[in-house]
């Protein structure tokens, strides 16, 4: 669709300024195209950015898109921000994996599954924007429910939760029942 230059430019500009990922439907409406045409242009843009002289990439998050930098260029950006990438602690990663797979879930359930208090780790994750409160659970004390954020997906290079590696054990499902009773 080489003659769609203006729409192409508009899409690029929109994906550049968008705070939240934009869906094909939203993009199509904004540039006044049919959704399938917008999807085609977005795909073209995605391809274009794949060329090695480009530093940007179209990042897919859930059903939406936004422009970001190529993951492999992260060191340059960290140099600019003078912020060496700091990995998460083992504790934070454990908590994060529990929240990712069992969301929405409560502090109680996390503590039970890890066999150890996790409040510090949960607080760190919330602070880093990887995890957020998503509601409250019915029942005594109405504990806060936690879930992962879009930032979580971005941080681990996932485009949706369905891309999480599958958990290996069949005991997984059963343990969920146990934890429920314990709470």
């Amino acid at each position, binding site marked *: 669709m080489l003659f769609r230059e203006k729409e192409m430019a508009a899409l690029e500009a929109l994906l*550049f*300024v*968008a*705070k939240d990922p934009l869906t094909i439907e939203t993009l199509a409406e904004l540039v006044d195209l049919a959704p399938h045409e917008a999807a085609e242009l977005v795909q073209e843009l995605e391809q274009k950015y794949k060329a090695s002289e480009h530093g940007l*990439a179209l*990042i897919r998050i859930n059903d939406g898109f*936004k*422009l*970001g*930098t*190529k*993951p*492999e*260029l*992260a*060191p340059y*950006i960290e140099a600019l921000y003078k912020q060496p*990438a700091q*990995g*998460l602690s*083992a*504790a934070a*990663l*454990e908590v*994060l*994996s*529990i929240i*990712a*797979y069992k969301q929405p879930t409560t502090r109680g359930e996390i503590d*039970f*599954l*890890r*066999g*150890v*208090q996790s409040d510090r780790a949960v607080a760190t994750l919330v602070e880093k924007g990887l995890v957020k409160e998503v509601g409250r659970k019915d029942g005594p004390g109405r504990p806060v429910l936690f879930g992962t954020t879009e930032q979580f997906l*971005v*941080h*681990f*290079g*996932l485009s949706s939760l369905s891309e*999480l*590696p599958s*958990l*290996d*054990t069949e*005991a*997984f499902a*059963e*343990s*969920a029942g*146990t*934890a429920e009773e314990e709470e």
Partner: protein
Amino acid sequence: MEEGHRLPYVELPAFQGPLDLLLHLIQQEKVDIWDIPIARIADQFVEVVREMENLDMEVTSEFLVLAAQLLYLKSLYLLPKPKPEKEETEEEDPRRELLERLLAYRSFKQAAEVLASYESASGHPYFREIDVEEIISSFSSKEDPLTEVGFGDLLEAFRRVFERAEQGEEIQRIAPEAITIEEMAQDVLRRVVLHAKGIRFQELLRFNSRLEIVMAFLSVLELLKAGKIRAEQPSVRSEITVFPTETALQDLDEDNSK
């Protein structure tokens, strides 16, 4: 305990909790979780916890609880079994609950390791910091806040101001007798200010009671004295018309800035 049984090799500080430690011990045994030699594992666990205490490491109560649980399980195996083995079902395995927890913990730990590898593998994309406010304020043609507001609405709004001043809501609620000259003067002045082309004395009256006429007249005199209004009376018999002066408006600002 057998002599020469090696101490479990552990990097003590690395444990995320008692389940992590237990998992580590089992993995060292290289057996399936369901086949763990519970007595030996229990002893090892207790030993490591003691070691941790010796090293002055933080041994949370969770470690002690699990140690107790393991010792309890160990004791069950040391006691003679009351029931014939063939009737034993899996559900009655006293280790079951603990081992299930351990399996669940193991799968999350593995998932955490996968996530860690994702994290370190290739870096992640960075995004721009989007300042929505800034974007909106950069628009050349701002959203028209007057959408669907016409002259009629503007005049209507002004009429409401007028109406309220004319009605003197407060004045009407309170019996005129209870009103001080100052309040009356305020009311009069408000309406005078709205009538830049002048307002007739008669128009200032709402009740037309003798008292109100007297009060209004006194108010006008007060305002005249203060230089806030000026009055015109073409002839003795004709009506008095009052106008706001510059001073009137100045004083409003003074009052307001107090």
